[in-house]
């Protein structure tokens, strides 16, 4: 086995995603959220995480996915980005998995849309594919993301 890396996994709309374990600050259940009127729709709100203000982003919206089923309270994956802590709202939390670098492949060219810009590639797990999220890109909101896409 070659180089390995650890990912914190979660699911979104049946897909398995992973973020580098190093960037994850913590995973928490629902916290009271304050919506921000007029903010980009991706922003779900601001929460108070023990005195630290954390912007929560709706990852489904960020990835241009359909809204989640009603009645399911999303989980918060709090990641450390360049702009401080950001919470990504996901459907369900999975395990921490350790994968071999060798199983990594770049995103296929045929994958288009907003999701392409936010995914670094996939790891081929035994039974399914692990989508590796680009944390910095996923934490960007509004224009910044669009310029990145244009590039």
């Amino acid at each position, binding site marked *: 086995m070659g180089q390995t890396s650890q990912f914190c996994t979660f699911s979104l709309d049946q897909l398995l995603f992973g973020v580098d374990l190093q960037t994850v600050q913590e995973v928490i259940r629902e916290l009271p959220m304050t919506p921000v009127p007029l903010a980009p729709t991706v922003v779900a709100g601001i929460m108070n995480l023990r*005195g630290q203000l954390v912007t929560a982003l709706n990852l489904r919206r960020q990835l241009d996915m359909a809204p989640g089923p009603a009645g399911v309270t999303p989980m918060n994956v709090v990641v450390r980005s360049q702009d401080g802590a950001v919470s990504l709202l996901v459907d369900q939390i999975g395990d921490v998995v350790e994968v071999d670098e060798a199983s990594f492949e770049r995103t296929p060219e045929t994958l288009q849309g907003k999701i392409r810009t936010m995914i670094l590639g996939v790891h081929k797990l035994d039974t399914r594919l692990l989508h590796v999220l680009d944390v910095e890109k996923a934490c960007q909101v509004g224009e910044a993301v669009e310029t990145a896409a244009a590039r």
Partner: protein
Amino acid sequence: MDDIVKDFLIESAENLDRLDQELVRLETDPTSKDLLASIFRTIHTIKGSCGFLGFARLEKVAHVGESLLSRLRDGDLDLTEDMTSGLLEMVDAVRHMLADIQATSEDGVNDYPELQERLKVLLQGGSGAQPAAKKGKAAKAAADHAEPAGDSQGVQSSAPEVVIEVKAQAVVAQSPVLHASAPQAREKIAEQGNEVAAKSAPRPDAGQASASGTEAREAVADTVRIGVNLLDRLMNLVGELVLARNQLMQFSQRSSDGGLQMVSQRMNLIAAELQEQVMKTRMQPIGNIWSKFPRTVRDLAHSCGKQIQLEMEGQDTELDRTIIEAIKDPLTHLVRNSVDHGVEPPEARELAGKKAAGRLRLHAYHEGGQVNIEISDDGAGLNVDRIRKKAIERGLITAEQASRLAEVEVFNLIFLPGFSTAETITNVSGRGVGMDVVKTNVEKIGGMVDVTSKAGMGTTVRVKIPLTLAIIPALIVTCRSERFAIPQVGLTELVRLEADEVAKGIEMVHGVPVHRLRGRLLPLVYLSKELQLDTDGPDSARKDQAVNIAVLQADDRRFGLVVDEINDSEEIVVKPLRRQLKAVKTFAGSTIMGDGKVALILDVLGIAQRASVVTEAREHGLGEEDEGSSRDAALEKRRYLLFEGPGGSRMAMPLDTLARLEELPATDVEKAGKQWVAQYRGDILPLINLEFALEERRRTRSEVKLRPTESESPLQVLVCNHQGRSVGLVVEQILDIIEDSAEMKYPASRPGVLYSTVINERVTELIDIPAILHTAGFGAGDGKTALAKSAEAAN
């Protein structure tokens, strides 16, 4: 980098700042033994540490300075201006080398041979200089050859002894320079001339020889250096503690357990006290940034050939460190400005009968929860004519506008972007970046700048800034079950309209809601609408409910913000919004409420802009007082008075043609000949009813009913100064003052109108005042030629 080097850098930076100040002070009081001694010790400390840490170049430079200082202190030489300059240069050189050390851990490659040479020449300037100079050189040579490692061992081995000796000073003595407080040691070191502390450390009398117990040191003896991050973190934790306390209090109130209540009560007090104290740790005296000014002023004054005496008052006025940082540059700029432009050269001052040395005074003081900082000089004052001329030259205003500006308004022109009166561009100022930047920077932190000046007497710039940005008093309001905080600064009053008053209290100006507040129209902005909080359509269901209006001040405009509920006034801790939300201009930040939930802080100006109460172009406009009377050249924005003319039509006139708005009781109207007039400010004010002037102009003049109104309601009168006379135009209703470029012009549909345009998305007629006055038959006699002329000019 070694911790030891880091400590050395920090300490040296402080020492150098003190050196700057002391040297400048020494210049005014060249015989002060205390000052000289203190300066000598400071340099000595730096030099000693350098030798110990192995920065030979730095040590060499410091050493030459020290030699000179020692001779000065011993009274062998008298301080000259050259010496001060040389010593200050040496301080600069040391500063450069320290920067090099910070960057590369080496003390650079430059050992400043010229500076060393110059200082040496100065050193030999006095009589009998030779032996001492030689001694200095010998000491230097010794320093050059000394083994740094050996020294350091020596110092360390003797260190414990010193600690015992000086006790409290040990806290400050972070760099292992020896400090001892024995006063006689000072004498001893004087005799020993240039012997270096570090060198003498291995000697038996080390503790005494390296005496450096200064007053300043003793003053800071009980302080500890703490990282800002740690303070911020403490602050956050205290915030959390306060929240937990609040929850505990709620909990204990429900409980009947006396013990719990007592404990929570104590907890309450302790938390409050703790919060206050932690808050204080972030406060810094403004003297921290002022301390650089004596040097700045001295150097500048020298390069401008001026003599300036700097006075500072209120150095210990405390401000939050973020604010201190933010006002550093603006203040420095203002001080430089005063030196460069404010104070005249000595000859000019003497001609004007003033003392040759100008005075520059900095004064900081608390007032009404804010800090005022005044920078005043006793120079020539602002030259009103020159500012006018420059502003016209630079195309900031037109000549016509300039002639109309009052003195205060002219002063405020200096805050316009691109303004500078300096005839020549010096390295000090005159590059056209200046006061506007000062103004924007100060406004950014919620402050204000204004300037007053008296010809021949001087200029005062007053900067008003809030104490802290971290904690502000705010009003908490609720709108659609969300809480928002409105900073108290922008809040002027609260108005509540009970359910049965709503229908009467809120009127519509063509669909735009307004409230009549003490006779003036207050445009209303619905928070729920602006923030798009209404998911189920506009608030038709709320018609029968009481309305809460928070009257807010954005820029110079007032508006009423309609919210669902007004809760309470609280001190809130401001937390900035993350970058993801920076684009949302309606919020200034967020805060954590007592229940742990986050509430957003409304940005009053942002809301006002969103609701078009003020236009976004304000940043390009002039300051508050003079916005009405000038226009921004780049955008051709102009301010108009909007009013309701005959038949409810929307009309406008440029604000600069207006002298005043008045409300006259109908009973005041009298008739003089054919002219309706009113007594007004001890004069007779002819009144023209706009309705008749516009609509009825086909009638012959004798038929024109100039009777302004039949009704008994007060008249809304626009008083215009025309050709040196006041004329009152009677209109239906005064609506608003707006700023607009009026770029779309449609030909007039009727006489008395210059053109139609779209202002605030409404078709508005711009009235032609000269034409109306002419039509109304006003001034048909003597004023006619003048009127005709101005009518031509207007067309």
